[in-house]
């Protein structure tokens, strides 16, 4: 995240002030929604739903923001990894539906975890191929990137139709992740809790890697100035491929989680969530994982609050949110220092 200086006089140590203002938006939005909704249990439910949705969008968006930050690559094909992840996960889980529907947490997990793992592996592998074949030839050429990655997304969607058929596939949640904990008047859906936990875990792991490991430092340095990283003797392309693959695998994870949330899998789901994903990475500041995280939660909360208060506005609310944030900070919440 960014820091600003108060004074850098010759003698005094400059005051480093971490920029926490964007962090305040989340509680502010939550608190503003409370009187509008005027119903504490409903507000709590919507807030949890919003956070859960935000976490899943974060999973899908975090890789893409780093991909853009590192190599200025605009990858509209990212949605393909989301859809493919969901289908692969479904392919692993559906044949074992009996275990999914068994009233046993252990059996449920014995299906869910391999499903998620397979989704991440296949999406990651697909990401590797996609980077080599589709992205590598168009480094530095934005217009071509947009066209060819859009094309890649369409091809992927068609390929999904060929492999898994044209229909949407129902994907019921495992038994132990259905239903809610009821506390007083408040229903806390189990699956939403899980989504929040997974999102938080991934976020914390990413922060740890980015801040505490040499690999992470290289990624952050590369987002700022890739020429200098190369001049220090590091192959930025390799780093980029690694980030691309990891980002694709996370998109696959997000895809499975999203599909289980909706309890259906469709070939176009990737393309549909990509609108939200792009809004999130623009709000967050291109290349910033922290900004992406806050942006994703903000988008999730807004979608749920507005969907409840004024369903007709739900579609436009996230775009309005993006416009407002960009009016406040034209580079997004956490602009990344560049060159």
């Amino acid at each position, binding site marked *: 995240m960014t820091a600003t200086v108060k004074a*850098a006089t010759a003698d005094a*140590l400059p005051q480093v002030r971490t920029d926490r203002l964007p962090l305040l938006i989340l509680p502010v939005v939550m608190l503003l929604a409370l009187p509008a909704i005027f119903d504490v249990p409903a507000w709590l439910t919507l807030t949890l739903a919003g956070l859960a949705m935000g976490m899943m969008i974060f999973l899908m968006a975090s890789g893409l923001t780093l991909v853009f930050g590192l190599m200025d690559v605009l990858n509209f094909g990212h949605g393909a990894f989301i859809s493919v992840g969901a289908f692969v996960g479904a392919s692993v889980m559906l044949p074992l539906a009996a275990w999914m529907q068994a009233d046993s947490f252990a059996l449920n997990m014995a299906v869910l975890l391999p499903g998620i793992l397979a989704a991440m592996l296949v999406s990651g592998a697909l990401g590797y191929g996609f980077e080599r074949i589709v992205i590598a030839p168009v480094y530095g050429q934005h217009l071509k990137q947009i066209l060819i990655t859009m094309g890649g997304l369409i091809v992927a969607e068609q390929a999904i139709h060929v492999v898994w058929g044209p229909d949407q596939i129902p994907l019921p949640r495992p038994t132990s992740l259905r239903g809610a904990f009821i506390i007083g008047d408040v229903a806390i859906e189990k699956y939403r809790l899980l989504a929040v936990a997974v999102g938080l875990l991934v976020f914390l792991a990413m922060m740890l890697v980015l801040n505490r490991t*040499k690999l992470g430092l290289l990624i952050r340095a590369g987002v*700022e100035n890739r*020429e200098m990283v190369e001049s*220090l003797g*590091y192959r930025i392309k390799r780093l980029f491929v690694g980030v691309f693959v990891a980002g694709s695998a996370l998109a696959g994870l997000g895809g499975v989680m999203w599909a289980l949330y909706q309890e259906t899998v469709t070939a176009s789901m990737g393309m549909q969530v990509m609108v939200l994903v792009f809004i999130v990475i623009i709000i967050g500041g291109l290349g910033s994982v922290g900004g992406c995280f806050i942006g994703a939660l903000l988008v999730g909360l807004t979608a749920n609050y507005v969907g409840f208060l004024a369903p007709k506005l739900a579609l436009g609310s996230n775009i309005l949110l993006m416009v407002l944030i960009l009016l406040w900070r034209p580079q997004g919440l956490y602009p990344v220092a560049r060159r």
Partner: protein
Amino acid sequence: MSEPILSLRGLNTHIAQYHILHGVEFDVPRGQLTMLLGRNGAGKTTTLRSIMGLWRASAGEILFEGRNIAGLSTPEIARLGIAYVPESMAIFADLTVKENLVLAARNGPLDGARLDWLFGLFPAMKRFWTLPAGVLSGGQKQMLAVSRAIVEPRKLLLVDEPSKGLAPSIIANMITAFRELKQGDTTILLVEQNFNFARQLGDSVAVMDDGRIVHRGSMAALASDAGLQQKLLGLSLDAHQ
């Protein structure tokens, strides 16, 4: 004299469709400090970037220890033992001073004795050790950029206008640093506009104009010939001071 550590032979560089370097030729003798001088826009930065592989040479050879490195990738060139301090400094603003140096140390953890030596030359590095480099002043950023290049021993340093924007006291430290590096067997190719700085350090000198080398010789000869300075650099030492 021994074989030069670096020789440019007929180096041509294009940036997009523009032909910037037209057959640049000069040697950088091993263990010496070579100054590359010239007016604004002469092609000094382009020459250094071509050596680093940041611009592709369109013709000619870049011989490093006898091997043509034109065509190698930038990371490969860096790993041969060439360090680069760009004109823009290119410090990583979001990373701390320490993290900037950790990345520059390719061969493992930072070396304590080397760090102490660095801190002696640039005390600010020690003071700001855990702060994001973005909060440093311009001069401190310049010191960090140089520190990053020398945090591990390298064979050849390419340094682009390190004196730009520095206070005289810091320039003195910079001069000490380069002198000590030279004694420690590092060869330096230094681009400089500040002739007063250049004359204190340079062993030999190459002067560029319009993408070509227009003069090669010893620094002593150039420093003692005001007329030649006037002709080559468009300045006299007195006027510059």
